[in-house]
């Protein structure tokens, strides 16, 4: 009864999160599910508190990330970077497309996939519109690269921080398993999309980069201080990952430092800050932790994970099992809840101790690269396609699915081979 109730609440909540009936925010749907878990006694108040409090590092990391992105945006960093990419393209649409891949990979690596997808997308949309190029190739470049480059460093995706907290893997170990796979994923994604958009990105453009950069950077002192701060933060992330510091603390310290610069230069804009800081995100994540605790206590996550890993006999096959399972789950229910289920199941004894690390590395890769198959998870993509087609809007999701059907399997297979080999 207890198990069935936990499974029912969990599944119904995830469906409501994905479908978003009446545009209800995912945060409130998740919160309602968490309250139900508590009200029905599936999760005790103490269990809920422990589940949320033990992940303090992830909350701090998200908050630091939002602060950093907000100040970088206020300083004109993203516009400047996009202007630089356009200037270096020398008037060629195809070279600009390549530069957007590079830019997307660098920003994802050091500022996370969140910054790339949320902030760089509108910046690239604006610059390509101004240059009168077809926007789609460039938007796809950003969107795919946000996932493809998201396992380069432990801070390139909040999911890495979450998984890393449980793996306790220092930077050298992390990179030993994932760096080559990440570079392969970036190269494959770039090559496939360059071929796909070769004709569409053929346009040429004239670009007055001096004037563009002047208008992007309104306060040179603030901009320079912000760039210096971002470089120091990147170094701190690398050192922190190597020494197993809690990355949330590093992110908060970096965000606070950058905010102090903005205050000192009188450039802090409350409106801009509000657009970047999303309190509902914290409600969403906290609620997910409680929901997952519910299914974990009911023995569901260990059983699920144990099924996924049942055929794995060694580290290599455990990587593959984790990767395939989490890639599929990420497309069905979104990658954050998917990876939470995998971590929870592995922790609760669903995976033999000897296979714990390779299995979670595989799950991390699947959750990072898997979303390149469908833009917002399979179910919501289907709903979205139906709705936008009914309205007669030009659909980019079909294109995404077409490219994703090539990119996602290629990057997942190459990563599976490389990461599995790294455990031999």
């Amino acid at each position, binding site marked *: 009864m207890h198990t069935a109730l936990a499974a029912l609440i969990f599944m119904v909540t995830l469906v409501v999160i994905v479908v978003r009936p009446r545009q209800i925010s995912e945060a409130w749907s998740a919160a309602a599910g968490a309250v139900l878990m508590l009200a029905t006694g599936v999760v005790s108040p103490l269990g809920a508190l422990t589940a949320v409090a033990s992940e303090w590092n992830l909350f701090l990391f998200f908050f630091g990330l939002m602060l950093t992105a907000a100040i970088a945006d206020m300083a004109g960093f993203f516009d400047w970077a996009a202007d630089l990419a356009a200037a270096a393209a020398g008037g060629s649409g195809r070279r600009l497309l390549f530069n957007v891949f590079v830019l997307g990979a660098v920003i994802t690596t050091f500022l996370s996939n969140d910054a790339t997808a949320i902030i760089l997308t509108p910046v690239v949309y604006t610059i390509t519109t101004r240059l009168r190029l077809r926007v789609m190739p460039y938007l796809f470049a950003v969107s795919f690269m946000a996932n493809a480059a998201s396992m380069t460093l432990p801070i390139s995706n909040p999911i890495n921080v979450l998984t890393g907290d449980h793996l306790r893997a220092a930077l050298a170990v992390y990179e030993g398993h994932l760096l080559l796979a990440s570079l392969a994923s970036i190269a494959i994604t770039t090559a496939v999309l360059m071929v796909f958009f070769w004709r569409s990105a053929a346009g040429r453009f004239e670009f007055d980069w001096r004037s563009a950069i002047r208008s992007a950077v309104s306060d040179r002192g603030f901009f320079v201080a912000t760039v210096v701060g971002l470089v120091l933060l990147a170094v701190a992330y690398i050192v922190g990952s190597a020494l197993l510091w809690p990355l949330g603390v590093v992110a908060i310290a970096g965000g606070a430092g950058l905010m102090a610069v903005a205050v000192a230069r009188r450039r802090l804009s409350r409106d801009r800050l509000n657009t970047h800081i999303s309190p*509902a995100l914290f409600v969403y994540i906290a609620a997910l932790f409680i929901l997952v605790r519910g299914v974990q206590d009911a023995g569901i996550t260990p059983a699920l994970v144990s099924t996924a890993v049942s055929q794995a006999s060694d580290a290599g096959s455990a990587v593959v099992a984790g990767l395939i399972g989490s890639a599929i789950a990420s497309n069905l229910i979104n990658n954050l809840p998917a990876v939470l289920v995998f971590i929870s199941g592995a922790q609760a004894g669903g995976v033999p101790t000897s296979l714990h690390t390779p299995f979670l590395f595989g799950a991390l890769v699947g959750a990072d690269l898997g979303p390149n198959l469908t833009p917002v998870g399979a179910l919501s993509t289907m709903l979205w396609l139906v709705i936008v087609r009914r309205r007669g809007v030009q659909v980019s999701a079909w294109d995404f699915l077409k490219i994703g059907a090539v990119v996602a399997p290629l990057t997942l297979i190459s990563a599976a081979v490389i990461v599995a080999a790294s455990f031999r």
Partner: protein
Amino acid sequence: MTDAQNVLNQLRILMLVDGFDTEGLFDSLARLLQLREAELLLVFVHRTGPRPGLELAPRRPGGHDLAPHRERELANAEVEGGNQALAEAEKIARQLGARVESRHLDGEPGHVVCELAKAERADLVAVRGTGHGRPQVGPGSLGPTARFIVDHSPCPVLLLRDSG
């Protein structure tokens, strides 16, 4: 000049300028029609509906779809791009000897063109026939705007293929 070309000279042609490769668009048109003395109504439509592709930017739970300052910048870029595209098209059309009038309008391009063609009693609508990432010919070659215009235009439609 043939009689047929003389008739074409008197046409009032409504041409949708989309901002991409305007020169190529005119090359295709000038290959078919003698534009000297033709009356050319150039239209650029600033799309006011959902922007295709922007939905690829994920939204944080409870977050904004697009930050207000980004929305302003994007709208400015669209207007700026539209003005440049029209200015470029006007220049090329005048060089080809056409009598030119131009309009920068808001709305869904297909709807706007069909309504304008009706209101202006256009004899012919000229529009780029191929869309982004679509084949040059065959089923699915027409973009949604061209498809709408072919289906709803009150006058004949000339579909221009990319010269390459």
